[in-house]
């Protein structure tokens, strides 16, 4: 397993390189100038030129790329144009915030969505099935910024139960930290439910058709036992893949929710950097996300055999 993991990680290197080239090229294709954004509303063409030189933007693209990749290889992600602090620090500060929300929300939504999907599959084509799909779809169809407005108004303003602004890390203060996370986690939960429920429903339907389920039923086992003991472990495996993909995407930043709930997460770091054309931050965060993605997918693949005995690594 170890050698498999190492091989997989080594295979990720070309992906990382490609992602690096891609983001580098993309940021330079997008019009806009980091130096100009830095100087802002002070009208001084000379200052812009000086800043460009300072940032090394006056060099050729190849030179810029080599310099950047060279510093990456020596473990330095560079410094933010906007704030002047190291990109690594900015990632280290913002990633835990995003991770907390995403992990908690994904965990909770799996607990809810997987059984829900199994029930829908079990009662396929009934009105309960339509009801479950309908409900989760309804949850999905409220865009997260609207969900945030609804939650903020209801629990923040009208009921006054939850704080509308602020963030405390749960490692600092578990209870207070949790308080600030309730709303963002709820909003995220709603968007995840539908995807996971539908996936769980689909894979359970697949499994329920298989012979061994028919055997189990023929043996006179109760439906509930069949569903939980026999169908669940196998239906869970494909859902796990989707879960991994979802997690990979979400950890990259839930920018809309972070904006609405004023959370200092990685999504906001990224979008702020994109809008300010803060090249080092965009590039650094992107490489980090790709790494994350590779690691999560590896973890999912390593977990897979535990649920699906047919798969061998």
């Amino acid at each position, binding site marked *: 397993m170890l050698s498999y993991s190492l091989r997989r990680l080594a295979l990720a290197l070309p992906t990382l390189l490609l992602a690096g080239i891609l983001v580098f090229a993309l940021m330079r294709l997008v019009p806009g100038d980091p130096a100009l954004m830095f100087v802002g509303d002070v009208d001084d063409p000379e200052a812009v030129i000086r800043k460009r030189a300072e940032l090394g933007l006056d060099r050729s693209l190849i030179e810029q790329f080599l310099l950047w990749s060279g510093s990456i290889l020596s473990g330095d992600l560079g410094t933010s144009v906007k704030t002047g602090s190291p990109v690594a620090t900015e990632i280290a500060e913002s990633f835990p915030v995003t991770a907390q929300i995403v992990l908690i929300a994904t965990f909770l939504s799996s607990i809810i969505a997987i059984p829900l999907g199994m029930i829908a599959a079990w009662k396929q084509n009934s009105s309960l099935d339509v009801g479950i799909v309908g409900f989760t779809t309804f949850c999905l169809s409220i865009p997260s910024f609207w969900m945030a407005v609804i939650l903020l108004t209801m629990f923040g303003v009208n009921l006054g139960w939850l704080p509308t602004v602020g963030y*405390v890390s749960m490692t600092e203060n578990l209870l207070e930290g949790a308080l600030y996370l309730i709303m963002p986690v709820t909003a995220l939960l709603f968007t995840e439910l539908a995807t996971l429920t539908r996936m769980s429903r689909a894979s359970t339907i697949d499994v329920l058709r298989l012979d061994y389920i028919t055997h189990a039923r023929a043996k006179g086992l109760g439906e509930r036992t069949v569903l939980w003991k026999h169908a669940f472990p196998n239906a869970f495996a494909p859902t796990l893949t989707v879960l991994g993909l979802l997690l990979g995407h979400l950890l990259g930043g839930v920018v809309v929710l972070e904006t609405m709930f004023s959370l200092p997460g990685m999504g906001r770091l990224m979008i702020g950097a994109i809008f300010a054309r803060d090249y080092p931050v965009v590039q650094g965060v992107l490489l980090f996300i790709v790494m994350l993605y590779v690691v999560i997918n590896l973890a999912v693949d390593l977990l897979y055999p535990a649920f699906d005995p047919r798969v061998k690594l």
Partner: protein
Amino acid sequence: MKRSLLSCLAVSAGITLASPAVAETSLRVSVNSDIRSTQFGVNRDGTTDTVLHHVIEGLVAYRDDLSVGPLLAKSWEVSPDGTAYTFTLRDGALFHNGQPVTASDVKWSWERLLNPETKFVCRNWFDGTGGTGIKITSIETLDDKRVRFTLQEPNALFLSRMAHMVCLSGIIHKDTVGADGSWNNPIGTGPFTIKEWRKNQFIELAKFDRYVPLKEKADGYAGNREPRVDRIRFLVIADPAAAKAALLAGDIDVLTNLDLDAVEEVKNAKGIRVGLNITPGWEVMLMQDQDPLLKDKRIRQAIAHAINRDEIVLAATAGLGKPNPSAVAEKSSFFGKDFQQGLSYSPDKARQLLKEAGYKGETIKLTSNAQYPFDNKSAIAIQSMLQRVGINVELEVLDWATQFKNYNEGRTQLMVMGFSARPDPTLMYDVFMGDRNKRKNVYYADEKALEALAQSSTTADPEKRRQIFAQIHQRMIDDSSVMGLFNFVEADAFRPERVKGFEVWSLGKSRFWGVEVAK
């Protein structure tokens, strides 16, 4: 050194979470973005200025009527030939580290700003390299409390530029800068000190207990800046709807830059007051007269005639802004009837001019951005109005960085732009007028107008300057390359039963000295 500041913040974080034993007063204020750094005038933006003006003080500052008043300098004298300015420092002024402020600190601070290595963004305003006509030739200390700045030639705008909010020319203690040139927590002279900065969350200021204010009444940014609250926490809330919810929920005391569409609603909410303020910030539409089509003055005039400013104000500012065709702000002492004149709203005239110019329905691109509501909404309204007279306008909504780049390179046909507040009309005209050979973001380069503009910065007599501005404005209307739309309006909302003494002022940037919080 920055790293040590960060780790310092991390340690103190644990302490602030516990409720303080002594009843401290604290004020929670929302800002829509984080500060960029504590390096005023070097790495800054609007929010950075707002926060750091509580910590750092310049010698002079703007008053509410946009004239220049005292701050760290209690008074100044100008020599008869207009080249020497002698400032006398405020009595009892101390740095945050307890050291008294002396003339040599002023000299050191200014020489540091003028040193290219400092990367002060407005250095070229003062060292003769930027075409402002100001060149500081010497800074001398006359005694402990008096310092003399000598200019190469007299300039009407020296103090105006010195007081400018964007280029905060603050006086700081030498220890702010380490021996290796690194930047520490700034040691200024302002009423507050920086207590804790948590990136993208908040920046908290603490009262400077030994602050000795000026006797002169607080007026704009000038005068008495006595701190009356122990803590100010500027919370970063990026989304306007979220900020509104935070205010209504009582999680913040003051909301700066309230979304204008929410003013009506928030005003009617219990226990909340909204302060509205028209600032010199100016929304314009630029018409690129180098464009093959817009080269024709008649087409530009037709466009101007087709636009109804009142409707734009309604659409872009919920009717709260003020139409203004000129670069002279209403609060400015130069303002008068002359500056309210623009080409009249007349669709018929527009159609007639188009016909004369032989306009055949060519597509004209109108550029704006999605980030700034003023630009975005004005552009939507303008497009609709121009369609009505038969001009085929295509709306191009970019992200701000892209638009700003196009703006700077002059690459546009029609563009909606907002210019942040420049208190003196010359400074505002400077933004879009100039020599086309030197910079590309010049949108009006009429020779006579440029001559007049050059005069305006060397003329000291206010009445003469007023006449010059009126002359520029007349020429500008006729030329119609730059069409003034309206002055910005800023709304700040607060809870009056908790926050006492908070007032909006003409430049809009919120001030929290003199503000009290009910316990």
